[in-house]
């Protein structure tokens, strides 16, 4: 009899204190994340700009988007960046991690640290030095290319439609492998060693051990790496803004850069928000597909 009011008091105390502990964080989260997200969707149905009341235009922004050749070009470039950089980043970091995770701790940390450096250096510092390396006259790429006989004359890497996007993807790769390597090294270190030993006793070779034993066990990490790399590649912005501003001839425009351009150069907020919504939907679909594929892969 005495237990019920007691536990009810406890429930009340838990609820009140729970929400009190959450409150400060929730204020920031709702105020500066949830509210803008809702506003992003809402404003995408308006013709919105500075210093004027927004005008409701229904789906007109979305209709215009799919007829806008620059948007479609940006969509295509974004797709290329994602399709190249996601598999390469994941493959590369998995390879590096499996090569270093068994090394002695200081050496492993050193490698892990070096591959993480471009992330910490910051996108601006990384970008400006690469810009110099790509430079038409003083860049080391042209110098090296000529020194080993690959090039016979200087190439304007960032100003040439054929190379600009590739150059950007290369920088993007160096700044995206850091985090996956950290994750894979720790995941591989946590693989159940007794299973590996059992397989080796049974005469499995290294490849078999990797694909049959380790790969299924690091699947959750792979999934997470896929999702974060996809999001990162979709959001590739600083590189483009600082290196090419989307040029030459829109060959390096991405959705993220185009949103910035429409919203902060032309002040078309509604149109920019509509692009943001489309981008979010595409990322959600990609993540869902990756989840599905990864689930199917582990369940056999």
């Amino acid at each position, binding site marked *: 009899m005495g237990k019920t009011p007691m536990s009810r008091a406890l*429930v009340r105390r838990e609820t009140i204190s729970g929400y009190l502990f959450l409150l*400060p964080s929730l204020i920031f989260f709702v105020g500066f*994340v949830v509210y803008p997200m809702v506003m992003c969707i809402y404003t995408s149905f308006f013709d919105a700009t500075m210093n004027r009341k927004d005008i409701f235009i229904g789906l007109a922004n979305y209709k215009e988007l799919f007829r806008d050749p620059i948007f479609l070009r940006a969509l295509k470039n974004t797709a290329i960046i994602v399709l190249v950089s996601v598999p390469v980043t994941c493959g590369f970091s998995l390879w590096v991690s499996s090569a270093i995770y068994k090394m002695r701790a200081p050496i492993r940390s050193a490698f892990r640290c070096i591959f993480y450096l471009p992330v910490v250096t910051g996108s*601006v510092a990384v970008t400006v030095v690469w810009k110099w390396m790509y430079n038409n006259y*003083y860049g*080391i790429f042209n110098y090296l290319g000529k020194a080993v006989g690959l090039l016979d004359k200087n190439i304007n890497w960032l100003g040439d439609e054929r190379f600009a996007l590739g150059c950007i993807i290369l920088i993007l790769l160096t700044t995206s492998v850091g985090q996956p390597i950290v994750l894979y090294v720790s995941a591989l270190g946590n693989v159940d060693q007794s299973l590996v030993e059992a397989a080796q006793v049974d005469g499995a070779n290294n490849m078999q051990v990797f694909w049959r034993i380790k790969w299924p066990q690091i699947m959750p990490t792979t999934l997470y790496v896929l999702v974060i790399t996809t999001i990162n590649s979709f*959001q590739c912005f600083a590189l483009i803004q600082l290196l090419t501003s989307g040029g030459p001839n829109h060959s390096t425009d991405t959705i993220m850069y185009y949103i910035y351009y429409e919203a902060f150069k032309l002040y078309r907020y509604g149109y920019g928000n509509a692009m943001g919504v489309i981008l979010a939907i595409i990322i959600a679909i990609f993540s869902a597909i990756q989840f599905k594929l990864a689930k199917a892969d582990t369940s056999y």
Partner: protein
Amino acid sequence: MNNLNAGVHHTTPYKVITVILLVVLAFMFLFPLYWIVTGSFKTAKEINAATPAWWPSEWVLTNYEKLFTRRSAPLFDFTVPFTKTVITGPEVPAAIRWLINTVWMAVASMIITCVTATMAGYALAKKRFLGRGLIFTVIVCAMALPKQVILIPLIREMSKLELYDSLWAVILPIVGWPFGVFLMKQFSEGIPSEMLEAARIDGASEAKTFTHIVVPLVKPGIGALAIFTFINSWNDYFMQLIMLTGTNVLTIPLGIAKLQAENSTDYGLIMAGAALASVPILTVFIIFQKYFTQGITMGAVKG
């Protein structure tokens, strides 16, 4: 057993090639950083040479001198609350002001994030109340969305709050980003419930339980989150770019981007700026590397 030992010690050609390749790659990853630092000390002649100077033949400070004399800004300016009085500090090189702004922004984001996220993470992991599951789901969904799509609405919100073009416009959204809550929930799951139970039976208040039991137990998590937030806010270029425009509120990454836009071919000057932007943050990273790694791995454990 023999088989195992053979696997560890036996050197195969494949292993030799792997190690060589790794070392080459490591050098390639280090090279941009090396190029920034050495470039910042090179003479204009060596910077613009068609044949690169791999090592500066003469170390000069001219690039840094240029960086620090280009423009000046007050060391600080502070509006006294509820008045129009502005207290301004002495004039210093603008780059110094940018550095101060960046440190202040990163430290403020870090402290507020750590406090709010530790509290929220504890509540989500250890408190049982209605709506907990829903709040957590919303947080995870928000994390999967690209942060940048909310930037346009954020700008208008900040203008309404009259925070646009102030460092708070960058700090507040960083604090709102729910990764910290997620990370601290992961760490708080490890707190033994019996300890919280015992504290409650002993009559400890919720606040006391939090400061005396929870905080000491999740200290490694707070360390990881602190360093993570510090580095991320330092390098969050996009957010800074759209929120900050006045010279007195520029951060160091923005300042360098501006330098680059104005003097796009003076690579010596730009490298000096890049060194100023990256060396402090790299030092912080190398010192606290252990916590950082831990934070990344904990944040990935699926919850």
